Structure formats: structure tokens, C-alpha cells
């Protein structure tokens, strides 16, 4: 099972929920716990889960795109490469071919279409992946995070590679994906192919506005079942409740506005460490999602 934790609006508590969910599921008794548990931090522009989970990070992978390199001795400056490029990332100016690496999506179109076979591809790094292990009660869980290089625009390829290499393969497994904020392509890349999207929101006009769009992305565009966690419950107004009710979205958990939670967060401490009673609540959250996903799969087969 793959669960993406997203929000629309930033700073609503995605990482808090994802981290505590991991720690709670990880400490379930082995007979009820998924066989393989993986955590992937897909907020590659601002990855923060490592601050709370403190994994021992060992391996690093480079991530990048295949970009064109032109062999000047073969090039006839015919301009085909520039014509087929949909991103204006390659230009032919007189007797020179110029590649703009920040614009290139690495699609290969120029290489495929060069009539002289004058283009080959070289690796252009845009980010890296880091891999490690998180232990709960000495039980190891795989941790992975993507990191976009400074000044690079495209987060999605880093997320895509992180998912391809990281998602748990075992039958009885759980992969948690901590999504970036917003509702644009990096969020879609994170949610794609998951079984459930858990939307963490706050009961404010900003939270509601961005939650609506996040529901459109997950449920309406990608057809993935969604549920909501209301964080800082008690602040703001009741409009998120009303929206969830009307849109038939289950509210799976409420975390009250609590200064001690915010203060612990500031120092990189999980809720479970401050309020052990949340352990049971996060396990229940997992069980509810598990039930929804399995009923959903049963339902679609019937």
C-alpha cells in the first residue's frame, strides 16, 4: 500500500503527520505490522522529514537528465534539433548550436531526429537521492529523500527517480510519501500511482482554499481515494468541516491547536515523544486508511 501525504497549502503539518504515522506503524507488533515499511520525502525543494526521523544516511545517488551534446564535426547546422524541441532548449545560430540546460526536459527529441546522428546524450545532474534507515524499537525501516540542486527548476524528475528506486516491493508493505506543498506537477508526480492520499489541512480560509484544489488533483484528476486530517483544530472557523461533509470526504483525525506540539516541532521532536497517547491514534489512522483502500479495491473488482 502506498499513502501520499499532501495538503495544498504549505505548513499545515504534512511532515508531522507522515513522520508520526511512520513511527506509530513501525512500533506495531510484528504480526500486525506491514512486512516492509518505507518512507520517501518527496518534498525535494525543502525536505524536512530527516530532521525528525534522524535516519543514518549512507548511500547517495545522482539524479539528472540526459541532455544533448552536439558533435560539431558531424553537425551541418540544418536546424532540425531546434525545430523539434518543444522547450526552446536548443538553438542553431549560424555555425553554432547552443544548448540551454535549464530549459531542457531531457526528452530526447533532438537526438532522435538529428539527420546526421550528430547528437549524443550526456548526464546533467539536477539533484540527488539519499538513502538510509530509521529504527523504531530496533525494527529497521527504509528512508529515502530527494534533494533538488539549488537553481534547478524541475523537481518532478527527482521525485520520479526517488519513487522508482524507493517504493516498497513486498506484497505486505507500506510506503509513505511526504509530498511538497502546492497543487502543481511535483504534487501530481508524488501522488501518481498511490493507493490513498491523506490531505492535512488547517481549519482556515487559506487551508480550505488550497484543500479544495488538492482534492481536485487527487480525487478528480487521479481518481485516488482521499481522507483529511485537520491539524490545529480549534483555530479559525468551521468551513473545512462543512466542505468535507458536503464533498463526502472522511475526516480521519483531528489534532488540536496545542502549543506544546508546536514547540516540540520547533526542536525536531515528534508528537509521539511528547504525547505518547497519540501512538494509538496514529495506529487507528493507519487502520482506517487500510480499511478504505481494501474496501475500495474489493469494490472495484466486483
Amino acid at each position: 500500500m502506498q499513502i501520499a501525504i499532501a495538503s495544498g497549502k504549505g505548513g499545515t503539518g504534512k511532515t508531522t503527520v507522515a513522520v508520526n504515522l511512520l513511527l506509530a506503524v513501525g512500533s506495531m507488533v510484528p504480526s500486525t505490522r506491514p512486512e516492509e515499511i518505507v518512507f520517501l520525502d518527496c518534498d525535494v525543494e525543502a525536505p524536512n522529514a530527516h530532521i525528525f526521523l534522524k535516519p543514518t544516511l549512507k548511500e547517495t545517488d545522482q539524479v539528472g537528465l540526459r541532455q544533448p551534446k552536439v558533435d560539431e564535426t558531424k553537425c551541418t547546422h540544418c536546424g532540425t534539433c531546434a525545430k523539434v524541441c518543444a522547450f526552446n532548449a536548443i538553438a542553431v545560430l549560424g555555425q553554432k548550436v547552443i544548448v540551454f540546460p535549464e530549459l531542457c526536459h531531457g526528452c530526447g527529441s533532438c537526438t532522435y531526429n538529428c539527420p546526421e546522428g550528430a547528437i549524443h546524450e550526456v548526464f546533467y545532474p539536477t539533484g540527488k537521492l539519499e538513502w538510509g534507515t530509521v529504527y523504531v524499537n530496533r525494527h529497521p525501516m527504509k528512508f529515502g529523500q530527494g534533494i533538488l540542486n539549488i537553481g534547478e527548476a524541475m523537481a518532478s524528475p527527482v521525485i520520479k527517480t526517488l519513487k522508482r528506486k524507493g517504493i516498497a516491493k513486498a506484497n505486505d508493505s507500506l510506503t509513505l510519501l511526504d509530498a511538497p506543498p502546492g497543487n502543481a506537477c511535483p504534487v501530481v508526480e508524488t501522488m501518481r500511482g498511490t493507493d490513498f492520499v491523506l490531505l492535512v489541512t488547517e481549519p482556515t480560509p487559506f487551508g480550505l482554499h488550497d484543500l479544495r484544489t488538492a482534492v481536485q488533483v487527487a480525487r478528480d484528476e487521479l481518481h485516488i481515494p482521499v481522507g483529511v486530517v485537520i491539524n490545529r483544530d480549534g483555530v479559525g472557523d468551521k468551513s473545512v468541516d462543512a466542505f468535507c461533509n458536503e464533498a463526502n470526504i472522511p475526516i480521519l483525525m483531528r489534532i488540536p491547536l496545542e502549543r506544546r506540539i508546536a514547540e516540540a516541532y520547533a526542536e525536531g521532536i515528534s508528537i509521539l515523544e511528547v504525547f505518547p497517547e497519540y501512538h494509538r491514534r496514529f495506529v487507528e489512522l493507519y487502520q482506517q486508511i487500510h480499511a478504505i483502500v481494501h474496501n475500495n479495491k474489493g469494490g472495484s473488482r466486483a
Partner: protein
Amino acid sequence: MNKDPKQVVILSGKGGTGKTSVAASLAHLAAQDLSLSIADADVDASNLDLVLHPQRIEEHAFKSGLLAHIDPQRCISCGQCYEACRFDAIIPGFKGAPYKVDPVACEGCNACLYQCPVNAITSSEPEAGLWFYSQTPYGPLYHAHLFAGAENSGKLVTLVKQQARLKALDDQRPLVLIDGPPGIGCPVISSVSGADLALLVVEPTLSGAHDLKRVLQTTLHFGVKTLALINKADLSQKQCQEIEAFCQSQDIPVIARIPYNTLVTEAMVQGQPITAYSEGSAIAQALHGVWSTIKTYLNL
């Protein structure tokens, strides 16, 4: 000749630190001193309009990127498009059925189109969002709505910013105030480019400090003068001190510490900038200080 308006962009790295609340207050305070135009550059989660009560004057379609389409009548199911696509966007036909494009995965690169031996593939420019020109009590606002999950948010940011700048030039408004998106990627790069000043809204948490470093590297990478303010400052004395020490080591002035107060949320629910909702509050006072510092930095 008109003078170039100064552009101030508000960023944070981490989401939810208070960019929009600070932007709304600065719009309110700036409008008392001069005329400005405003851009909401957080196009996939835009919220500035919720506190500025814009009256919409114009609405435009934003078309961007390409989307491939396979004509099922022409497709011979040869699989060359599938081989060419690097974005897993081609869905093979089952037992000789025509191939299809997954519109969510399609990058719009046209690689498939050129490989198709029977010209069964075309591409078109889909509508990816809307952008608006509105009037607010504090000045003209340019904002947008990127459709759910759409690509090219950077292009839409550039468009919205450019419109705000042109309006400022036309009306001789000396300031363009830009509410930026979280993160450091494509929409942030578009928001930063051409800015005269970046204001980083930081929260005193380990995550806030971690992301501050990434966004600061980004603004410096693009050569933009950068200031920081600490929001919700009383949440952690220790993190405040560490952030201030870090900023000092990087020569980044920390121009204010704004206390945490649920008044900010109340103001948001009421749809007002905090400086208008609670003029006498400590938060409003601190924001007055932020605005006068920005004015000094930009010689306004």
C-alpha cells in the same frame, strides 16, 4: 522617461510560515505611503485574494505546454511512440488496440509525434489556468489560478509578475509587491528573477532554518539582495538565536521578530490584513517596522 519600479518578493522555502499574511500587511501599509501594484506568484495555491478582497476586472485564459493526442483511426499499434516516450505517458493498446496518451503524464515534448510512422499523433496547447487583473483597496492585483495538477507554473508566475510590472510602469507606481510560492524550484526561480529585494519569512523551527538555507542559496544564486524576518518568534528562543546567528554569518539582516498570536488567524478569517484588523497589536507594530526598513533599503 518612467523610472523602473522596484520589485520586492516575499519567500520562505518552507510553506506556511506566513508569507501571505506578511504580504497582505505590507500591501496595506505601503498603500498609505505610495502607489503600488501587487502580484500573487503562488499560482497553484493562491490565497492573497482572500484577504485583499479584489474586484475582478479582467479574466484571461493561460495556455501553456503541449499535450499529445493519438488518432485511434490511424494508429497501427507499432509501439514506436511508446519506445520514444521518456515520461511513461504512452499507454500501449491491448492486443493490437490503438495506443493512448496519459494526459497527466504527458510532458508535451512531441518526441512521440516525430517518431510516429503514420502521422497519427498531433499535439495541442491545452488551457492550463486563468489569470486575473483585479482592483483592491491597496492597488491593482495580478493573480492566477493554475488548474489542478497543471504544469508550467513558472511561466504563469512570469506572466503575472510581468503584468504587475507593466502596470506599475504605466501608472508610475514605484513598487511591485510579489507574494511568492514556497520551495526553491521553478515557480520560485520565476518569482526571484528581476527582483530588487527578497524578504524571507522564516519560522524559528529546525525545518524553517533548514529551508531558509536552501531559499537563501537560491536568492543569492540569482544575485538578489535578501532580508529576513522571523515570524512566530516566541515559539522557540533557541531556534531564533540560531537563525539570527546564521543570518549574521551570511550578512543577511534580520529586520524583525514577529510574535506568535492567533490574532493573525482571526484576521485571516475576517479577510483582513492583520495591520488593518488590529492596528495597535504588537504584530502590527512589528510590521510597521518591516515596511519602513524596506522603504529605506529601496530608497522609496
